[in-house]
C-alpha cells in the first residue's frame, strides 16, 4: 500500500526554512520568499488554450446537468396521471430536444475551433501532442453526454411507437357498435383508458369484456326494432372479416417497423464507418498522389541517364 508522506514533506520544508534562516542563506526570494509564494500562486497566467478548454468543459457539464435533471420527467410516460409538477408535455420535450441539439452543435464547433487554433503559435512537439490529447478527451466527453441525450430520445420514440400501436388495437372491439351508432365517444374513452394502464396484451380483452355489457346496453338502448337478426349476423360477419384484415395489416406493419428500425440502426453504423474511412481515404489519396509524382520523377531521371 502506498504511504502518504506529504505531511513529512511539508515538515521537511519547514526544517529547511528554519535551517536556512539560521544559516542566513538567501533562498530564492529569501525572507520575502513566503510572500512571493502567496503572490505568485494566484495570478499565475493561465494559458489561453487551457482556459478556453475548461470553458467548453463547463458548458458540456451544464448540458449534462440539464439533461439529467429533466431526464426523469422526460422519460415518464404516464405524466398525465401524475401531479402538475411531474408533467411534461410533448412540446416541452421537443423543446428540450431542440435546445440540446443546438447546444451540442455549438460545443462541437467550439472544439473544432480550438483544434485549429491550438497548433498555431506553439512550436514544441510535446505541447502540441498534449493539446491534441486534451481536445480528444473533450470530444469524448461530449460524445458521452450526447449518448445520454440520444438514449432518452430513443426511449421516447419507442414509447410513442408503442403507444400508437396500442391505440390502434383498442377501438377494434368497438367497431361493432360504430356500424350502428356513431360511437366516437365510446372509442375515445377506452383508448384513453388504455393509455392510462400499462400496455399488455391482456388489457384489450378485459376492455372487450367491459365494453360488452356496454354494447349490450347500447344495443338495447337503440332499440331492437332497427336491426333484424339477419342483419346483425351479416354485420357480425363483416366485422369479423374486417378484424381479420386489420390484424394481418397490423402484423405486416409491425414487421416493417421492426425492420425499418434495424435498417436505420445499420445505416447509422455504416455512416459512422464511412466517415471514419473518409479520413483514411484522404490520406491514402495523398500518398498515392505523392507516389505517382515520385515515380514520374524517377522515370525522368532514368531517361536522362545515357543508355549504355
Amino acid at each position, binding site marked *: *500500500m*502506498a*504511504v*502518504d*508522506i*506529504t505531511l*513529512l*514533506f*511539508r515538515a*521537511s*520544508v519547514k*526544517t*529547511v*526554512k528554519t535551517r*536556512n534562516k539560521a544559516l542566513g542563506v538567501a*533562498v*530564492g*526570494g529569501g525572507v520575502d*520568499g513566503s510572500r*512571493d*509564494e502567496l503572490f*505568485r*500562486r494566484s495570478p*499565475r*497566467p*493561465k*494559458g489561453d488554450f*487551457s482556459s478556453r478548454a475548461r470553458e467548453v*468543459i463547463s458548458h*458540456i*457539464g451544464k448540458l*449534462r446537468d440539464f439533461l*439529467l435533471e429533466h431526464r426523469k420527467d422526460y422519460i415518464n410516460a404516464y405524466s398525465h396521471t401524475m401531479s402538475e409538477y411531474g408533467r411534461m408535455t410533448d412540446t416541452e420535450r421537443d423543446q428540450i430536444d431542440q435546445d440540446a441539439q443546438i447546444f451540442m452543435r455549438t460545443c462541437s464547433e467550439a472544439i473544432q475551433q480550438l483544434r485549429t487554433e491550438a497548433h498555431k503559435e506553439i512550436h*514544441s*512537439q*510535446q*505541447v502540441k*501532442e*498534449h493539446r491534441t*490529447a*486534451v481536445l480528444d*478527451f*473533450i470530444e*469524448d*466527453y461530449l460524445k*458521452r*453526454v450526447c449518448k*445520454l441525450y440520444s438514449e432518452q430520445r430513443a426511449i421516447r420514440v419507442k414509447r410513442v411507437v408503442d403507444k400508437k400501436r396500442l391505440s390502434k388495437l383498442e377501438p377494434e372491439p368497438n367497431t361493432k357498435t360504430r356500424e350502428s351508432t356513431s360511437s366516437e365517444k365510446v372509442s375515445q374513452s377506452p383508448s384513453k383508458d388504455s393509455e392510462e394502464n400499462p400496455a399488455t396484451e391482456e388489457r384489450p380483452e378485459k376492455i372487450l369484456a367491459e365494453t360488452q355489457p356496454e354494447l349490450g346496453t347500447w344495443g338495447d338502448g337503440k332499440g331492437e326494432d332497427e336491426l333484424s337478426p339477419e342483419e346483425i349476423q351479416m354485420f357480425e360477419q363483416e366485422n369479423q372479416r374486417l378484424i381479420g384484415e386489420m390484424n394481418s395489416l397490423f402484423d405486416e406493419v409491425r*414487421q416493417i417497423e*421492426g*425492420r425499418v428500425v*434495424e*435498417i436505420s*440502426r*445499420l445505416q447509422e*453504423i455504416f455512416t459512422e464507418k464511412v466517415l471514419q474511412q473518409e479520413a483514411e481515404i484522404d490520406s491514402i489519396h495523398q500518398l498515392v498522389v505523392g507516389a505517382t509524382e515520385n515515380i514520374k520523377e524517377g522515370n525522368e531521371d532514368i531517361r536522362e541517364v545515357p543508355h549504355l
Partner: protein
Amino acid sequence: MAAAAAATAAAAASIRERQTVALKRMLNFNVPHIKNSTGEPVWKVLIYDRFGQDIISPLLSVKELRDMGITLHLLLHSDRDPIPDVPAVYFVMPTEENIDRMCQDLRNQLYESYYLNFISAISRSKLEDIANAALAASAVTQVAKVFDQYLNFITLEDDMFVLCNQNKELVSYRAINRPDITDTEMETVMDTIVDSLFCFFVTLGAVPIIRCSRGTAAEMVAVKLDKKLRENLRDARNSLFTGDTLGAGQFSFQRPLLVLVDRNIDLATPLHHTWTYQALVHDVLDFHLNRVNLEESSGVENSPAGARPKRKNKKSYDLTPVDKFWQKHKGSPFPEVAESVQQELESYRAQEDEVKRLKSIMGLEGEDEGAISMLSDNTAKLTSAVSSLPELLEKKRLIDLHTNVATAVLEHIKARKLDVYFEYEEKIMSKTTLDKSLLDIISDPDGTPEDKMRLFLIYYISTQQAPSEADLEQYKKALTDAGCNLNPLQYIKQWKAFTKMASAPASYGSTTTKPMGLLSRVMNTGSQFVMEGVKNLVLKQQNLPVTRILDNLMEMKSNPETDDYRYFDPKMLRGNDSSVPRNKNPFQEAIVFVVGGGNYIEYQNLVDYIKGKQGKHILYGCSELFNATQFIKQLSQLGQK
C-alpha cells in the same frame, strides 16, 4: 461469511491486479479510481524513469493510460518542454540523479502542480533536498502530494514477478556468485533484493512465513527480510501491515509461505531446452517484459544485382492477459499450439464466410417477393454480424500474431533441431538409457555450439559420478572442435565441487514420443506448420527440484532435503529461527522466490503442479529472468576468472 470466503478464494493471489490497482490510484492523483461514465475529463502528464517504465509497461497499455487521462508520458531524463496548467505525476526511484532532475524541473517551472510518487521509500535527507529546491523555486505549494508507492518489482503474469530489468547486472547470478565479491558489494546486492521483496509483500498485504536453505545467498536474503518486516511491524505508528491495508479479510486465517531458494540448487533447468510455448518464445526469440520482437525478412525474391539489400522488417508484439489464445496455450507443448492456431484460423474463416454470405443475400432485395420474408431474419443477422465485426477483427489480429510468432519459433526448432536436444536432455535428466552416445551428438556437424554446450553441461551436472579424466578430455576436444567455449565448464566444475547437494535431482519421469497419428493430421490439413521431421513430443508431468522443495514445505512433508531449512516468522515476538515450524498445517498460498535468477520452465512447472491442487495458489518470483543464452554467458564470465 460467504463474501469473505469468496474474496479469499478469488483473487487474493493476483499480484498483477493489486499492482495495477495501485498504479491506477496513483495516476488518479492518489485517490481510488471510480469509473464514471459522465465524468468530466481531467488531464495530466506522466513522468517516469526507466524503472517506472518497466513496472508500468507490462500492466497498462498506452490506451489504458489515455483512459486515465494521461496526455503525455515522458522519460524523466529527456528534454521536456514546459506545459503550463497541467498537473504532472512523477513515478521514479529516489536516486540522486532523479532527485536532481526533479529539482531542476521545479526550478524551471515546467508544470502546474506536482504529484511525486517514489517507487520505493525515499530517505529523509533526499526529501529535504527536494524541499530545498521547492523553496528556492517558490514552488512549495505546487508540490501537491508526495507518496511512497512500494511498487519496486515488475509483475509479468498474474502469478509471476521479477525484481528488476534495468539494473539486472547488479543482482544477477554472476554478481552474487563471483569469487571476488566483497562484503560491502554483497550487502548492496542483498539490500536491493530485500527492498524489492519488502515492497512486494507490502503490496500483497501479507506477512509471510519464511523458509530457506542454509548456507546460501537465499539465507542472507531471508535474514534481512525477516529483520525488515519485523522492524516495520513493531513500529506501530508507521506499520504498513495494519488492518486497513490488508483488505477484505484475506490472509486473516492463513499466512502465505515464502520459500527462498538459491539458483545453485538446480543449474540444469536454466540450460534445459524446452518444449512449451511461452518458455520456447523466451528461449528462442527476443522476449522481454511480455513483448516479443521478431525480425521478418521482406520478400523471398532475389533482388537484382546492384540494388539495395533487402531490409528486414522488425515487428514487435505484446503478449498480454487480454490475449485469450496466449493465456490458454502459453503452457502447452508446441505441437498443440500449432494445431490450435490452425483451428482458430479455421473457425475465423468460417465466421468470415458467414458474413460474406449475408452480403450476397442482401443482393436479393427488391427482386423477389418471397425473399422479403426471408429478409426479416437476415436483417437481424446482418445487424449482429456488423456488431460482431470488431470482435472478428481482434480475433484475426491475434491469429496473425500467433501465426507469426509460432512460425518464427518453428523455424528455430527446425534449424537447430531443438526437439532432438530436448528429448535427449529429458533422458539424461531422468536417467533413462541413451540411444545415442553423448560424444556422437557433440561430434555431429549439425547443431550450434551453444546447444551442444548446454547439452554437455546438463549431462555433467546430472551425472552422479564425474566422468573420468580421459573421457572428459575427449569431450572437451569434441566440444572445442564444434566451436564451443569451455569457460562455462570451468565454472560448473567448481560449482560441483562446492555444492553440498550430494543428491542429484530425483526422478524426472520419462518423456514419450506420441505415435505419428497426431502429427499426420496436422500435415494433412494443409497446415502452415509443416512439422515434418519434428518429433511430436509430449511432456509428462515431472517435478523439477524447485517444485519438489516447494511441495515438501507446503505440505509439511518430512524430507531430508528440506528438513533443516531455516524457519522465520516476523510476527513472532522473539527472533526464533528454529527449524521446527510452529505451524503444522499445510499452506494454502506460497511464494517461491529464486535468488540468482529464474526462468519460464520453472514457472510452468510450478503452474502445472498447482493446477492439480484445488484452492491453492503459488506465486513465482526471481531476482532476474534469463534464458539459456544469457545464463551461459554469465557462466562463461564466471569461468574465466
